[in-house]
C-alpha cells in the first residue's frame, strides 16, 4: 500500500468518504436494532389484550363463566378466544425442572474434570473437540437422536422426561464451556494458597476453587436453560405437537411446551389466532428476558473481580 492510495482526492472528498462509511456502519447496526423493536412491537400490539384477560383490562367488571378465562391457566381450545396456554406453561416448567436437575451435575462435573483434573493428552483433546462440534450440531438432529435413544431405546416414550433429557444434551456443550470459563477465571494463587496450607488437591479444588466459580457457573447454566426453553424443533419428535390438552402429572406424561403451542397456533390462518399466538410469544419472551436478567444480576452481584 503506497501513499498515493491512502491520500487519494482532496481533503474534502476524503472527509465525505469517511462520513459515508460511518453512515453505512450506523445503518447496519440500526437495521438489527429496528428489526428487534419491530418484532417486539408487533407481538405486543397484537397479543397484549389476549394475554391480559378482559377482566384485567377493565372491559368487564366480573369474570363469568362465559367470558374468556385467564390465558395463562386455561386449556387449549379450538376457539381462538378461549384457547389458553396452561398445559404448555406447565410443560415448560416441567422441562425446566428436568433440565436443571440433569444439567447442573453433568455440566459442572464435566467442567471441573476438564479444567482441574484432566491430563493434557489426546483423549482430553478429543473430548474438547467433541464439545466444539456438538455445539454446532443443528437442534433438529438432537431431536432425532432423542427420538431414537430416549423415546425408543430407553423406553421413556413420548414424555416430558424424554423432552427434558434431549434438551439437556442440547445445552450441555454450551454449559460445560461456560462453566470452564468460570473455573478458569479463578486465579492460580487460590489453588496454590490452599495447597500451601496443607490441603489435598481434591480439597483445594472442591473447597476453594469451585465455590468461588459457582456464580459464573450458575450464570452459564441459566443462559443455557433459557436457550433450552425456547427450543421447538427437538420437542416435536417427543410428541409434543399432538393435541395435548392436559397437565403433565408424572415425568412420563405426554406434554406440550410454550414454543410448541405457539407453533401450533401460528399454523391457523384466522386473525384471531394471530392474537393468541402473540400472547404466547409474549409469555415466552417474558420468561427468556427475565432469565437473562437473572443471569446478569448473578454475574454482577456475586462474581468476584480478582
Amino acid at each position, binding site marked *: 500500500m503506497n501513499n498515493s492510495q491512502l491520500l487519494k482526492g482532496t481533503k474534502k472528498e476524503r472527509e465525505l468518504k469517511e462520513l459515508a462509511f460511518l453512515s453505512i456502519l450506523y445503518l447496519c447496526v440500526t437495521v438489527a436494532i429496528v428489526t428487534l423493536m419491530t418484532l417486539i412491537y408487533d407481538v405486543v400490539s397484537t397479543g397484549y389484550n389476549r394475554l391480559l384477560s378482559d377482566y384485567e383490562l377493565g372491559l368487564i367488571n366480573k369474570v363469568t363463566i362465559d367470558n374468556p378465562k385467564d390465558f395463562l391457566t386455561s386449556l387449549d381450545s379450538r376457539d381462538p378466544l378461549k384457547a389458553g396456554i396452561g398445559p404448555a406453561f406447565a410443560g415448560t416448567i416441567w422441562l425446566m425442572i428436568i433440565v436443571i436437575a440433569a444439567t447442573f451435575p453433568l455440566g459442572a*462435573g464435566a467442567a471441573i474434570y476438564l479444567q482441574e483434573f484432566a491430563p493434557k493428552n489426546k483423549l482430553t483433546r478429543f473430548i474438547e473437540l467433541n464439545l466444539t462440534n456438538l455445539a454446532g450440531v*443443528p437442534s*433438529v*438432529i438432537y431431536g432425532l*437422536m432423542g427420538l431414537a435413544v430416549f423415546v425408543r431405546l430407553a423406553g421413556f416414550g413420548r414424555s416430558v422426561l424424554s423432552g427434558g433429557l434431549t434438551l439437556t444434551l442440547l445445552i450441555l456443550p454450551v454449559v460445560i464451556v461456560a462453566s470452564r470459563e468460570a473455573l478458569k477465571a479463578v486465579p492460580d494463587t487460590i*489453588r496454590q494458597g490452599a495447597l500451601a496450607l496443607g490441603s489435598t*488437591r*481434591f480439597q483445594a479444588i472442591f473447597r476453594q476453587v469451585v465455590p468461588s466459580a459457582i456464580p459464573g457457573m450458575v450464570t452459564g447454566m441459566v443462559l443455557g436453560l433459557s436457550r433450552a426453553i425456547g427450543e421447538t424443533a427437538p420437542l416435536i419428535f417427543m410428541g409434543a405437537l399432538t393435541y395435548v390438552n392436559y397437565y403433565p402429572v408424572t415425568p412420563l406424561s405426554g406434554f406440550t411446551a410454550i414454543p410448541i403451542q405457539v407453533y401450533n397456533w401460528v399454523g391457523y390462518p384466522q386473525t384471531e389466532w394471530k392474537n393468541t399466538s402473540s400472547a404466547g410469544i409474549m409469555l415466552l*419472551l417474558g420468561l427468556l428476558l427475565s432469565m437473562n436478567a437473572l443471569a446478569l444480576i448473578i454475574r454482577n452481584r456475586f462474581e468476584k473481580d480478582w
Partner: protein
Amino acid sequence: MTNNLNLSKVKTKPVETIVKFFITMSAFAAILISIAIVFTLLTEAINFFRDPAVTFKEYFTATRWTPTFKNPVYGVLPLVSSTLYIALIACIISFPLGLFSAIYLSEFASRRTRKIIKPIMEILAGVPTVVFGYFALNWITPNIVQRFIPGSGVFNAISAGMAVGIMIIPTVASISDDALNAVPKSLRMGSLALGSTRRITALKIMLPAALSGIIASFILGFSRAIGETMIVTIAGGQYPELNLDPRKAMYTITSSIVNVSLGDTPHGTTAYNSLFALGITLFIMTFILNIFADYIARKYRKEYEQ
C-alpha cells in the same frame, strides 16, 4: 501437581473416589453424545437405503420428495437446493449487516455505545426461532415481501431467508467482533499514527488482519442457516419439487424432517427411516462447515499468539 507430603497420613476418602469417578464420566458424556448421534443416524439411515423401495440413485437424482404419498418418491435434490437457496438469502442479509455491525462495535463505537448495543445483540440472539418464524409469516411476508415483490405467495423463500438472516446477524457480528479485537492494538495505532483515517484503518488494516476470523464467522453463520428449522418450517412452505423461484414456497431438509415426523410415521416404516437419512445428510453438511470454520479460526489465533 501432586501433594504427597502429608504430615498426618491422609488416605483418599471413598467420597473423593466416587466424586472423581462421577465427574470423569460427565466429561466422557461429550463423546457419548457424539457417538449416540452418529450411531442412531447411521443405523436408521442404513435401514432406509436397504429398503427395496429406495435406491441410492433415486435419493441423489430424483427431483421430488414425497415420502407420505401413495407412490412415494425419495429425492433429496429439491430439499438440498431449497436449503442452500434459503441459506444463501440469509447470508446476503446477515454477512454485510453482521460484519459492518462488528466493525462499528470494535472500531468506532464508544465504550458506552458498546455497552448498550451488545446486550441488544444478545437479546436478538436469544429470540426463539419459532418467534422469528411467526415474524416472517405475519410481518415480513405481508409488509415487505408481498408489498415490494409482486407474485409472492404466503409461504415464500425470501421471507424465510430474510428471517434466518436476521437470526444469524448476532452470530456473525459477535465472532467477527472477537476477531477484530484479537488483532494487536499496535497495528491500529501504527496505522492511525501514519496518518490514515479511521475508515482506511478499518478497511485496509484491521479487516485483512482479522480476515480468517471473519471468514470463520461467515462459515458458521452459513452452517447455522442450513440447520435452522422452525423459521423455514413456518414461513418457507412445503413445495416438494425442484423450484428456483424465491417468491414461491420451498421445502428445506429441516422442514421436511419436521413435516414427515408430524405425519403418520410408525417406527420401522420407510418414511420413518427417511427422517434419519435426511438427518445424516444435514449432519454431514453442517459438520464439514463447522470443522472448516474451526480450522480457519484456529489458524488466525496462532498468528497473533506469542
